[in-house]
Protein backbone atom coordinates (compact mmCIF):
# COMPACT_ATOMS: atom_id res chain seq x y z
CA UNK A 1 0.00 0.00 0.00
CA UNK A 2 1.45 3.31 -1.06
CA UNK A 3 1.88 5.85 1.67
CA UNK A 4 -0.38 8.88 1.21
CA UNK A 5 0.74 12.45 1.75
CA UNK A 6 -1.01 15.53 3.02
CA UNK A 7 -1.09 18.43 0.56
CA UNK A 8 -2.08 21.91 1.69
CA UNK A 9 -2.26 24.42 -1.11
CA UNK A 10 -3.98 27.69 -2.00
CA UNK A 11 -5.58 27.45 -5.43
CA UNK A 12 -7.02 30.68 -6.82
CA UNK A 13 -7.00 32.09 -3.30
CA UNK A 14 -8.91 29.18 -1.73
CA UNK A 15 -7.15 26.92 0.78
CA UNK A 16 -7.43 23.20 0.12
CA UNK A 17 -6.24 20.20 2.11
CA UNK A 18 -6.18 16.71 0.57
CA UNK A 19 -4.39 13.43 1.23
CA UNK A 20 -3.05 11.97 -2.01
CA UNK A 21 -0.77 9.30 -3.44
CA UNK A 22 2.74 10.60 -4.17
CA UNK A 23 2.45 9.70 -7.87
CA UNK A 24 -0.57 12.00 -8.46
CA UNK A 25 0.21 14.76 -10.95
CA UNK A 26 -0.75 18.34 -10.14
CA UNK A 27 -2.87 18.42 -13.33
CA UNK A 28 -4.93 15.44 -12.12
CA UNK A 29 -5.05 16.86 -8.59
CA UNK A 30 -6.58 20.10 -9.88
CA UNK A 31 -9.11 18.38 -12.12
CA UNK A 32 -10.07 15.29 -10.14
CA UNK A 33 -9.50 16.19 -6.49
CA UNK A 34 -10.54 19.85 -6.68
CA UNK A 35 -12.92 19.71 -9.66
CA UNK A 36 -11.13 22.61 -11.37
CA UNK A 37 -11.49 21.30 -14.91
CA UNK A 38 -10.43 24.54 -16.59
CA UNK A 39 -6.86 23.20 -16.67
CA UNK A 40 -6.74 20.90 -19.69
CA UNK A 41 -4.59 17.80 -20.08
CA UNK A 42 -3.19 17.20 -23.54
CA UNK A 43 0.06 15.27 -23.95
CA UNK A 44 0.91 14.51 -20.30
CA UNK A 45 4.64 14.87 -20.99
CA UNK A 46 5.37 18.57 -21.10
CA UNK A 47 5.12 19.19 -24.83
CA UNK A 48 1.69 20.71 -25.58
CA UNK A 49 1.38 23.35 -22.85
CA UNK A 50 -2.39 22.88 -22.34
CA UNK A 51 -1.98 22.20 -18.60
CA UNK A 52 0.12 25.32 -17.85
CA UNK A 53 -0.70 26.97 -14.49
CA UNK A 54 1.11 29.45 -12.25
CA UNK A 55 2.97 28.07 -9.22
CA UNK A 56 3.93 30.85 -6.80
CA UNK A 57 3.41 33.32 -9.65
CA UNK A 58 5.49 31.56 -12.33
CA UNK A 59 4.22 29.40 -15.19
CA UNK A 60 4.76 25.66 -14.89
CA UNK A 61 3.48 22.54 -16.61
CA UNK A 62 1.10 20.91 -14.13
CA UNK A 63 1.71 17.53 -15.83
CA UNK A 64 5.41 17.74 -14.91
CA UNK A 65 4.67 18.53 -11.29
CA UNK A 66 3.63 16.10 -8.59
CA UNK A 67 0.76 17.24 -6.38
CA UNK A 68 2.84 16.57 -3.25
CA UNK A 69 5.34 19.18 -4.47
CA UNK A 70 2.61 21.80 -4.40
CA UNK A 71 2.32 21.52 -0.61
CA UNK A 72 2.68 25.04 0.75
CA UNK A 73 2.46 26.63 -2.72
CA UNK A 74 0.11 29.13 -4.24
CA UNK A 75 -1.44 27.93 -7.53
CA UNK A 76 -3.35 29.95 -10.08
CA UNK A 77 -5.38 28.24 -12.79
CA UNK A 78 -7.40 29.70 -15.66
CA UNK A 79 -10.37 29.92 -13.28
CA UNK A 80 -8.49 32.74 -11.50
CA UNK A 81 -8.68 35.05 -14.52
CA UNK A 82 -12.34 35.78 -15.08
CA UNK A 83 -15.78 34.32 -15.76
CA UNK A 84 -17.91 34.06 -18.90
CA UNK A 85 -19.80 37.25 -18.06
CA UNK A 86 -16.75 38.97 -16.53
CA UNK A 87 -13.71 38.30 -18.73
CA UNK A 88 -10.25 39.42 -17.64
CA UNK A 89 -8.51 41.91 -19.98
CA UNK A 90 -6.37 39.09 -21.42
CA UNK A 91 -9.42 36.88 -22.00
CA UNK A 92 -11.21 39.86 -23.55
CA UNK A 93 -8.23 40.38 -25.91
CA UNK A 94 -8.44 36.71 -26.92
CA UNK A 95 -12.17 37.13 -27.63
CA UNK A 96 -11.72 40.37 -29.52
CA UNK A 97 -8.93 38.99 -31.74
CA UNK A 98 -10.54 35.55 -32.29
CA UNK A 99 -7.55 33.91 -30.60
CA UNK A 100 -9.37 30.65 -29.99
CA UNK A 101 -11.52 28.24 -31.90
CA UNK A 102 -12.08 24.86 -30.21
CA UNK A 103 -10.67 26.22 -26.94
CA UNK A 104 -8.69 23.18 -25.88
CA UNK A 105 -5.32 24.97 -25.77
CA UNK A 106 -6.80 28.22 -24.44
CA UNK A 107 -6.37 27.72 -20.66
CA UNK A 108 -2.68 26.91 -21.14
CA UNK A 109 -2.27 29.73 -23.66
CA UNK A 110 -3.81 32.23 -21.25
CA UNK A 111 -1.72 31.19 -18.25
CA UNK A 112 1.43 31.17 -20.41
CA UNK A 113 0.58 34.68 -21.64
CA UNK A 114 0.15 35.94 -18.07
CA UNK A 115 3.76 34.92 -17.35
CA UNK A 116 5.10 36.10 -20.74
CA UNK A 117 3.55 39.54 -20.20
CA UNK A 118 5.15 39.85 -16.76
CA UNK A 119 8.57 38.40 -17.80
CA UNK A 120 9.47 39.74 -21.26
CA UNK A 121 9.25 43.02 -23.21
CA UNK A 122 7.46 41.21 -26.12
CA UNK A 123 8.54 44.11 -28.33
CA UNK A 124 8.39 42.14 -31.57
CA UNK A 125 6.21 39.44 -33.09
CA UNK A 126 9.31 37.19 -33.19
CA UNK A 127 9.59 37.45 -29.42
CA UNK A 128 5.85 36.82 -28.98
CA UNK A 129 5.99 33.76 -31.26
CA UNK A 130 9.06 32.45 -29.40
CA UNK A 131 7.15 32.86 -26.15
CA UNK A 132 4.13 30.98 -27.48
CA UNK A 133 6.20 28.20 -29.05
CA UNK A 134 5.72 25.90 -26.08
CA UNK A 135 1.93 25.84 -26.49
CA UNK A 136 0.37 23.89 -29.33
CA UNK A 137 -2.81 25.12 -31.04
CA UNK A 138 -4.23 23.03 -33.87
CA UNK A 139 -7.01 25.45 -34.90
CA UNK A 140 -5.94 29.04 -35.22
CA UNK A 141 -2.58 28.93 -36.96
CA UNK A 142 -1.43 31.15 -34.05
CA UNK A 143 -1.78 34.43 -35.97
CA UNK A 144 -4.80 35.59 -33.97
CA UNK A 145 -3.18 34.57 -30.68
CA UNK A 146 -0.13 36.66 -31.61
CA UNK A 147 -2.46 39.61 -32.29
CA UNK A 148 -4.12 39.26 -28.89
CA UNK A 149 -0.75 39.15 -27.10
CA UNK A 150 0.54 42.09 -29.17
CA UNK A 151 -2.50 44.13 -28.12
CA UNK A 152 -1.97 43.25 -24.45
CA UNK A 153 1.79 43.98 -24.62
CA UNK A 154 1.07 47.43 -26.06
CA UNK A 155 -1.43 48.20 -23.29
CA UNK A 156 0.95 47.54 -20.38
Amino acid at each position, binding site marked *: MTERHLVRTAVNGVEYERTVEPRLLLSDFLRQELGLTGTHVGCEHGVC*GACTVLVDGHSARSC*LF*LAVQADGSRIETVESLGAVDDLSPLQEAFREHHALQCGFCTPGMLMTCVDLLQSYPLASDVEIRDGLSGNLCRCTGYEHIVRAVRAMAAKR
Partner: protein
Amino acid sequence: MVATERYSLAQSLVPLLNFRVVRPNVLIDINRLTMLDFVEEHDGGLRIGALTRHHTLETSPLVRYRFPVLAAAMQHVAHLAIRNRGTIGGSLSHADPASELPMLALLLDAEIQTSAACRAAADFFVGPLTTALADDELVTEIVLPALPPKTGWGFEEFSLRAGDFAVAAVAATLTGADGKIAKARLAAMGVGETPLRLLAAEAALTGQPFTAQLATEAAQLARDEVDPSSDLRASAGYRRHLVAALTERALETAWARAR
Protein backbone atom coordinates in the same frame (compact mmCIF):
# COMPACT_ATOMS: atom_id res chain seq x y z
CA MET B 1 14.41 -0.54 -12.74
CA VAL B 2 15.60 2.44 -10.80
CA ALA B 3 15.61 2.28 -7.05
CA THR B 4 16.02 5.94 -6.27
CA GLU B 5 16.06 9.09 -8.32
CA ARG B 6 17.10 12.52 -7.22
CA TYR B 7 14.37 14.87 -8.19
CA SER B 8 15.95 18.10 -9.33
CA LEU B 9 15.49 17.16 -12.98
CA ALA B 10 11.72 17.02 -12.86
CA GLN B 11 11.25 18.53 -16.31
CA SER B 12 12.95 15.45 -17.76
CA LEU B 13 12.14 12.90 -15.07
CA VAL B 14 8.37 13.32 -14.87
CA PRO B 15 7.84 12.55 -18.59
CA LEU B 16 9.80 9.33 -17.96
CA LEU B 17 7.52 8.59 -14.98
CA ASN B 18 4.40 9.40 -17.00
CA PHE B 19 5.50 6.98 -19.74
CA ARG B 20 6.37 4.36 -17.06
CA VAL B 21 9.91 4.25 -18.47
CA VAL B 22 11.29 4.61 -14.93
CA ARG B 23 9.50 3.26 -11.86
CA PRO B 24 11.43 4.49 -8.85
CA ASN B 25 10.63 3.05 -5.44
CA VAL B 26 11.85 6.19 -3.75
CA LEU B 27 11.82 9.72 -5.11
CA ILE B 28 13.57 12.51 -3.22
CA ASP B 29 12.47 16.04 -4.05
CA ILE B 30 15.32 18.48 -3.41
CA ASN B 31 13.38 21.58 -4.52
CA ARG B 32 13.16 22.80 -0.93
CA LEU B 33 16.94 22.93 -0.47
CA THR B 34 16.76 26.63 -1.26
CA MET B 35 20.34 27.15 -0.04
CA LEU B 36 21.35 25.53 -3.36
CA ASP B 37 19.63 28.29 -5.36
CA PHE B 38 22.25 31.05 -5.74
CA VAL B 39 24.53 32.87 -8.18
CA GLU B 40 27.63 34.46 -6.59
CA GLU B 41 30.85 36.16 -7.72
CA HIS B 42 33.93 33.95 -7.29
CA ASP B 43 37.44 35.14 -8.26
CA GLY B 44 36.16 36.86 -11.38
CA GLY B 45 34.04 33.84 -12.21
CA LEU B 46 30.81 32.54 -10.69
CA ARG B 47 29.58 29.96 -8.22
CA ILE B 48 26.13 28.70 -9.18
CA GLY B 49 24.01 26.55 -6.86
CA ALA B 50 22.69 23.30 -8.29
CA LEU B 51 19.08 24.35 -7.77
CA THR B 52 19.43 27.57 -9.79
CA ARG B 53 16.71 27.66 -12.45
CA HIS B 54 17.31 28.11 -16.17
CA HIS B 55 15.23 31.29 -16.08
CA THR B 56 17.46 32.71 -13.33
CA LEU B 57 20.55 32.03 -15.48
CA GLU B 58 18.75 33.68 -18.41
CA THR B 59 17.97 36.86 -16.49
CA SER B 60 20.62 37.19 -13.73
CA PRO B 61 22.64 40.43 -14.18
CA LEU B 62 25.72 38.64 -12.77
CA VAL B 63 25.46 35.85 -15.34
CA ARG B 64 24.91 38.36 -18.14
CA TYR B 65 27.97 40.32 -16.99
CA ARG B 66 30.40 37.44 -16.36
CA PHE B 67 29.18 34.80 -18.82
CA PRO B 68 26.86 36.35 -21.41
CA VAL B 69 27.25 33.17 -23.50
CA LEU B 70 25.46 31.26 -20.72
CA ALA B 71 22.59 33.75 -20.52
CA ALA B 72 22.23 33.70 -24.32
CA ALA B 73 22.21 29.91 -24.46
CA MET B 74 19.41 29.72 -21.89
CA GLN B 75 17.01 31.38 -24.33
CA HIS B 76 17.29 28.21 -26.44
CA VAL B 77 16.27 25.91 -23.58
CA ALA B 78 12.68 24.76 -24.11
CA HIS B 79 10.07 27.33 -23.03
CA LEU B 80 9.52 29.73 -20.13
CA ALA B 81 7.34 27.28 -18.15
CA ILE B 82 10.14 24.70 -18.38
CA ARG B 83 12.92 27.23 -17.66
CA ASN B 84 11.02 28.33 -14.54
CA ARG B 85 11.40 24.81 -13.10
CA GLY B 86 14.48 23.24 -14.73
CA THR B 87 17.75 23.53 -12.78
CA ILE B 88 21.44 23.55 -13.68
CA GLY B 89 22.14 20.62 -11.37
CA GLY B 90 19.29 18.63 -12.90
CA SER B 91 20.36 19.36 -16.44
CA LEU B 92 24.00 18.39 -15.81
CA SER B 93 22.92 15.21 -13.99
CA HIS B 94 20.51 14.26 -16.79
CA ALA B 95 23.36 14.72 -19.34
CA ASP B 96 21.25 14.88 -22.47
CA PRO B 97 23.77 15.06 -25.35
CA ALA B 98 21.63 17.73 -27.06
CA SER B 99 21.25 19.91 -23.96
CA GLU B 100 22.78 23.36 -23.60
CA LEU B 101 24.08 23.35 -20.02
CA PRO B 102 26.34 20.27 -20.36
CA MET B 103 27.93 21.85 -23.45
CA LEU B 104 28.37 25.19 -21.66
CA ALA B 105 29.93 23.44 -18.65
CA LEU B 106 32.46 21.86 -21.00
CA LEU B 107 33.10 25.09 -22.92
CA LEU B 108 33.59 27.12 -19.75
CA ASP B 109 35.73 24.47 -18.01
CA ALA B 110 33.29 24.16 -15.11
CA GLU B 111 34.08 22.42 -11.87
CA ILE B 112 31.09 20.42 -10.73
CA GLN B 113 30.99 20.20 -6.96
CA THR B 114 29.05 17.21 -5.62
CA SER B 115 28.26 15.78 -2.21
CA ALA B 116 31.31 13.51 -2.65
CA ALA B 117 33.86 15.15 -4.94
CA CYS B 118 34.83 18.05 -7.15
CA ARG B 119 34.57 16.86 -10.74
CA ALA B 120 35.86 18.55 -13.89
CA ALA B 121 33.22 18.94 -16.59
CA ALA B 122 35.66 17.20 -18.96
CA ASP B 123 35.38 13.98 -16.87
CA PHE B 124 31.71 14.33 -15.94
CA PHE B 125 29.80 13.35 -19.09
CA VAL B 126 30.35 9.66 -19.76
CA GLY B 127 27.66 8.84 -22.32
CA PRO B 128 24.10 9.69 -23.35
CA LEU B 129 22.13 10.39 -20.12
CA THR B 130 25.13 9.01 -18.18
CA THR B 131 27.50 10.85 -15.85
CA ALA B 132 30.35 10.01 -13.49
CA LEU B 133 27.94 10.51 -10.54
CA ALA B 134 27.51 7.61 -8.13
CA ASP B 135 23.93 6.60 -7.20
CA ASP B 136 24.09 8.43 -3.87
CA GLU B 137 25.97 11.49 -5.17
CA LEU B 138 24.25 14.85 -5.57
CA VAL B 139 25.47 17.86 -7.57
CA THR B 140 25.59 20.82 -5.18
CA GLU B 141 27.23 23.67 -7.09
CA ILE B 142 28.97 24.61 -10.31
CA VAL B 143 32.07 26.81 -10.35
CA LEU B 144 32.81 28.69 -13.56
CA PRO B 145 36.39 30.03 -13.61
CA ALA B 146 36.94 33.61 -14.78
CA LEU B 147 37.30 34.22 -18.50
CA PRO B 148 40.49 36.11 -19.48
CA PRO B 149 40.06 39.78 -20.43
CA LYS B 150 39.25 40.42 -24.10
CA THR B 151 37.36 37.16 -24.45
CA GLY B 152 34.48 37.16 -26.93
CA TRP B 153 31.83 34.51 -27.32
CA GLY B 154 29.56 32.99 -29.94
CA PHE B 155 26.62 30.62 -29.58
CA GLU B 156 24.88 29.13 -32.58
CA GLU B 157 22.10 26.56 -32.41
CA PHE B 158 19.96 24.97 -35.09
CA SER B 159 16.67 23.36 -34.07
CA LEU B 160 13.58 22.52 -36.11
CA ARG B 161 11.31 24.68 -33.93
CA ALA B 162 11.93 27.33 -31.29
CA GLY B 163 12.52 25.59 -27.96
CA ASP B 164 12.88 22.13 -29.49
CA PHE B 165 15.98 20.02 -28.85
CA ALA B 166 18.95 21.15 -30.92
CA VAL B 167 19.82 19.27 -34.08
CA ALA B 168 23.29 20.71 -33.49
CA ALA B 169 24.84 23.65 -31.66
CA VAL B 170 28.32 25.13 -31.35
CA ALA B 171 29.65 27.54 -28.73
CA ALA B 172 32.97 29.36 -28.86
CA THR B 173 35.12 31.64 -26.74
CA LEU B 174 38.09 33.46 -28.30
CA THR B 175 40.60 35.49 -26.34
CA GLY B 176 42.43 38.16 -28.31
CA ALA B 177 45.95 39.49 -27.68
CA ASP B 178 47.97 41.72 -30.05
CA GLY B 179 45.61 40.95 -32.91
CA LYS B 180 46.06 37.20 -32.52
CA ILE B 181 43.96 34.47 -30.95
CA ALA B 182 45.64 33.77 -27.62
CA LYS B 183 43.12 31.17 -26.56
CA ALA B 184 40.32 29.36 -28.35
CA ARG B 185 37.67 27.05 -26.92
CA LEU B 186 34.97 25.37 -28.96
CA ALA B 187 32.28 22.93 -27.90
CA ALA B 188 29.50 21.19 -29.83
CA MET B 189 26.36 19.29 -28.91
CA GLY B 190 23.82 17.09 -30.64
CA VAL B 191 26.62 15.49 -32.64
CA GLY B 192 27.91 12.81 -30.28
CA GLU B 193 27.06 10.73 -27.24
CA THR B 194 28.15 13.59 -24.97
CA PRO B 195 28.88 17.27 -25.56
CA LEU B 196 32.30 17.57 -27.20
CA ARG B 197 35.26 19.94 -27.32
CA LEU B 198 36.38 20.60 -30.90
CA LEU B 199 40.08 20.15 -30.18
CA ALA B 200 41.50 20.08 -33.71
CA ALA B 201 39.75 23.34 -34.56
CA GLU B 202 40.93 24.92 -31.29
CA ALA B 203 44.55 23.93 -32.03
CA ALA B 204 44.38 25.39 -35.54
CA LEU B 205 43.10 28.73 -34.21
CA THR B 206 45.47 29.20 -31.26
CA GLY B 207 48.26 31.71 -31.84
CA GLN B 208 47.02 32.75 -35.28
CA PRO B 209 45.76 36.15 -36.44
CA PHE B 210 42.01 35.87 -37.05
CA THR B 211 40.94 35.86 -40.69
CA ALA B 212 37.75 34.76 -42.41
CA GLN B 213 39.77 32.04 -44.13
CA LEU B 214 41.10 30.75 -40.80
CA ALA B 215 37.52 30.53 -39.47
CA THR B 216 36.51 28.51 -42.54
CA GLU B 217 39.47 26.16 -42.14
CA ALA B 218 38.74 25.68 -38.44
CA ALA B 219 35.08 25.00 -39.28
CA GLN B 220 36.15 22.28 -41.73
CA LEU B 221 38.37 20.70 -39.06
CA ALA B 222 35.45 20.81 -36.65
CA ARG B 223 33.20 19.10 -39.21
CA ASP B 224 35.81 16.35 -39.71
CA GLU B 225 36.34 15.67 -36.00
CA VAL B 226 32.69 14.95 -35.15
CA ASP B 227 31.02 11.64 -35.85
CA PRO B 228 27.27 12.21 -35.39
CA SER B 229 24.46 9.68 -35.89
CA SER B 230 21.36 9.98 -38.01
CA ASP B 231 17.96 10.19 -36.34
CA LEU B 232 14.44 11.46 -37.03
CA ARG B 233 15.57 15.08 -36.87
CA ALA B 234 18.55 14.97 -39.25
CA SER B 235 21.04 12.76 -41.03
CA ALA B 236 24.64 12.41 -39.88
CA GLY B 237 25.81 14.21 -43.02
CA TYR B 238 23.52 17.16 -42.40
CA ARG B 239 24.72 17.40 -38.80
CA ARG B 240 28.36 17.52 -40.00
CA HIS B 241 27.40 20.27 -42.43
CA LEU B 242 25.74 22.14 -39.55
CA VAL B 243 28.84 21.83 -37.36
CA ALA B 244 30.91 23.55 -40.04
CA ALA B 245 28.37 26.32 -40.64
CA LEU B 246 27.68 26.94 -36.94
CA THR B 247 31.39 26.87 -36.02
CA GLU B 248 32.20 29.46 -38.66
CA ARG B 249 29.41 31.77 -37.46
CA ALA B 250 30.28 31.30 -33.78
CA LEU B 251 33.93 32.13 -34.46
CA GLU B 252 33.11 35.28 -36.45
CA THR B 253 30.81 36.51 -33.66
CA ALA B 254 33.23 35.59 -30.90
CA TRP B 255 36.13 37.43 -32.56
CA ALA B 256 34.03 40.53 -33.17
CA ARG B 257 33.26 40.56 -29.43
CA ALA B 258 36.84 39.78 -28.37
CA ARG B 259 38.33 43.03 -29.68
